[in-house]
């Protein structure tokens, strides 16, 4: 850049001459650290399988990036920014415990190869790589991607008494089915909430424990690595919409409505998505205004998919769809200029 070496060996460069010590790798590292509580929870509930799945996913993400950068692009390795490792962890967290390992590996290759490197690597990708990998697997292997096993503690949908017909369903699927076949009992789902908080329910390995995810997110909030705008609007909108359009009662002051709304925000991938996927910096808007729009969009889409879609879950598709409109949001969410003269 604007730099030259003067005869006196003094160097010249543009101000500022000091920089904050936060760097891209330090940010990635903190996000990885923030995912450790969830990883521990996943091992607790799904056993050794979680460890293997995560390692396979990381390995293939990292290897894919290394091969592409070193052999196709012939550039210095980019692994030291830790973003490939992070993608590997996030992809694994979005996979069911029993998924065949080769599928996880394939997911890793797609996540990095297509979701990230095809666009030019970190910073140039406009969709979340881990979600790209997950979406690919979901579209290619829908059965394997939606078959969930109970936790080691024997819980699958977290309800108080297993409902026979829907015993092999995750909490969200159980909810959808019980509404469809008229067996819905609000108290059943209220009883599921403590299990949703701890993570003692079936689901993708990293998404089930709301508490572990929140502890991790608290680290990122504290370090100001992520803000509240996306997460809060996303979760808030899902809560609000399911509270009003709960499908059971028009009395939104009834406990049923509140139970449903609460149940919805803690189940499925919403916590993982709102805390760690939608907040991915590269694929979310730059300004606070834009992030609020983005969070609202994610919330509305998640609600629509969960409510009317074929799948009980809609978090990853919602975020991916919103990723696509980020450039547009950025264009139209310009902050108010200091001292703007109103024309």
């Amino acid at each position, binding site marked *: *850049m*604007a*730099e*030259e070496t*003067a*005869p*006196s*060996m*003094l*160097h*010249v*460069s*543009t*101000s*500022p*001459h*000091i*920089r*904050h010590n*936060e*760097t*891209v790798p*330090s*940010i990635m590292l903190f996000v990885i650290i923030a995912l450790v509580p969830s990883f521990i929870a996943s091992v607790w509930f799904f056993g050794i399988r979680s460890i293997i799945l995560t390692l396979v996913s990381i390995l293939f993400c990292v290897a894919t990036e290394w091969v592409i950068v070193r052999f196709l692009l012939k550039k210095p390795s980019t692994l030291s*920014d830790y973003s490939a490792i992070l993608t590997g962890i996030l992809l694994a967290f979005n996979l069911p415990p029993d998924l065949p390992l080769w599928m996880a590996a394939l997911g890793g290759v797609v996540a990095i190869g297509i979701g990230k490197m095809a666009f*030019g*690597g*970190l*910073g*140039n990708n406009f969709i979340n790589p881990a979600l790209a990998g997950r979406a690919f697997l979901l579209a290619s292997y829908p059965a394997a991607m939606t078959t969930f096993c109970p936790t080691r503690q024997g819980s699958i949908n977290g309800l108080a008494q297993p409902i026979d017909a829907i015993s092999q369903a995750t909490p969200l699927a159980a909810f959808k089915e019980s509404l469809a076949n008229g067996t819905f009992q609000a108290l059943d789902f209220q009883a599921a909430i403590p299990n949703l908080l701890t993570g003692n329910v079936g689901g993708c390995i990293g998404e089930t424990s709301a508490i572990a995810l929140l502890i991790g997110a608290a680290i990122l909030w504290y370090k100001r690595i992520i803000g509240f705008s996306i997460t809060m609007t996303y979760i808030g909108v899902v809560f609000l919409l399911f509270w009003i359009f709960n499908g059971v009662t028009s009395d939104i002051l009834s406990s049923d409505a509140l139970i449903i709304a609460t149940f919805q925000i803690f189940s499925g991938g919403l916590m993982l998505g709102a805390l760690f996927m939608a907040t991915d*910096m*590269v*694929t*979310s*808007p*730059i*300004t*606070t205004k834009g*992030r609020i729009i983005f969070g609202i969009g994610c919330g509305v889409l998640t609600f629509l998919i969960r409510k009317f879609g074929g799948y009980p879950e809609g978090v990853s598709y919602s975020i991916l769809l919103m990723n696509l409109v980020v450039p547009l949001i*950025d264009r139209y969410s*310009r*902050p*108010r*200029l*200091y*001292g*703007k*003269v109103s024309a």
Partner: protein
Amino acid sequence: MFGKVSFKGGVHPPHSKKQTETVAIETLPAPEKVIIPLSMHIGAPSKIAVKRGESVKIGQILAESGGFVSVPAHSSVSGKVLSIGNFPHPLGQNITAVEIENDNQDDAVATEPLDKDWREAAPGEIIQKINSSGIVGLGGASFPTHVKLSPPSDKKIDTLIINGAECEPFLTADHRVILEKTEEFLTGALILKKTLGANDGIIAIEDNKPDALALVNKTLQDSKFSALRLVTMHTKYPQGGEKQLISAATKREVPSGGLPMDVGCVVQNVGTALAVYEAVCTGTPLYQRVVTVTGPTVAKPANLLVRIGTPIRNVLEHCGVDLTKTKKLIIGGPMMGLAQPELDAPVIKSTSGLLTSMEIHPGVKSYNCISCGKCATACPINLVPSLLARYVEKDLYEDALDWNALDCMECGSCAYVCPSKINLVHFIKLGKYHINAIKKAASKKE
């Protein structure tokens, strides 16, 4: 003291002031030679008024004011004019300067304070005195002070703010002036306030200088200073930027493309207030200033009273700077200061500090923008620096203009926080340069 005030945005770089904030101002012996450039201010260069070989005294005018937006330049030593020619200038490029050999006699021209008490003087007389004393803003912008004191008649100034923020890390010159020349700079503030006819006179100081706050607070108890009030500001960079200072102290927003006077404010730096006092009350023109010399390769960090025109090399030698370890020399603070390619340029009226650094590049490795948005959050003007840099990189100057690149004050907050270590200020400066060139070309065509 009441609640503390601040502005929106900004950053918190380490203060790094410990080394010099408790070191009293020391007078640097006058050098053997001084080099006094004809342009040490914004506006028309001064017009040479001496000849080669002529003997000059301290305070003698070397060059007359070159227009309304201009000031004269005075000699800072007594001696002989060695040459008038091109010399290095700290803002880059060689420009005409007067080289004077010091005879070490320190003969000074007779000082001429205002011929009456300043309280009785008309604003015009004070403004004239300030102009003829060569006073410019000493905070860094070096805009001629008398111009700021002569607003067009349709702009009513109701507030004078004395800028004691000194928000740049490392610099402590203003801090020391506040502590050691308290009554003097406050008197300067009174003179400025009276000249402007303002009804509010604010002394604004950041809360990382508790001793300065306490002392000013105590001094202001004296009834002769009752026209002034102290405002405590949170320590945040760039608190000392004119717009940020005005926002913090008065909650007013200077319009985009406008000036402080558009919202009834005039901002003057602490050092400028002191210079005004000295010009009006003692008749001393501006030929010396306080400079902070600090950095990791400086053996004796100091706040020095330096004669204008002293070569930087002399100042550094006095402070025991290890030049073999020095990789960078910055004039001003680390956020907005200018890196110098050589040591031969002189200290000029705007030189607030000399800072050495052992690092060539801050933040070594750079990455692609990860859209973290930290630059936008930090920008006190509410720009989106990452987008601006991207537009400039792709030569999309129209877009950069549309996204208000020209409003950038180059404070460096964005580049400071950027985790990808992108040289955002470099790109934005480049963009502004191109935009201005395009605008110029367009206006020529018409």
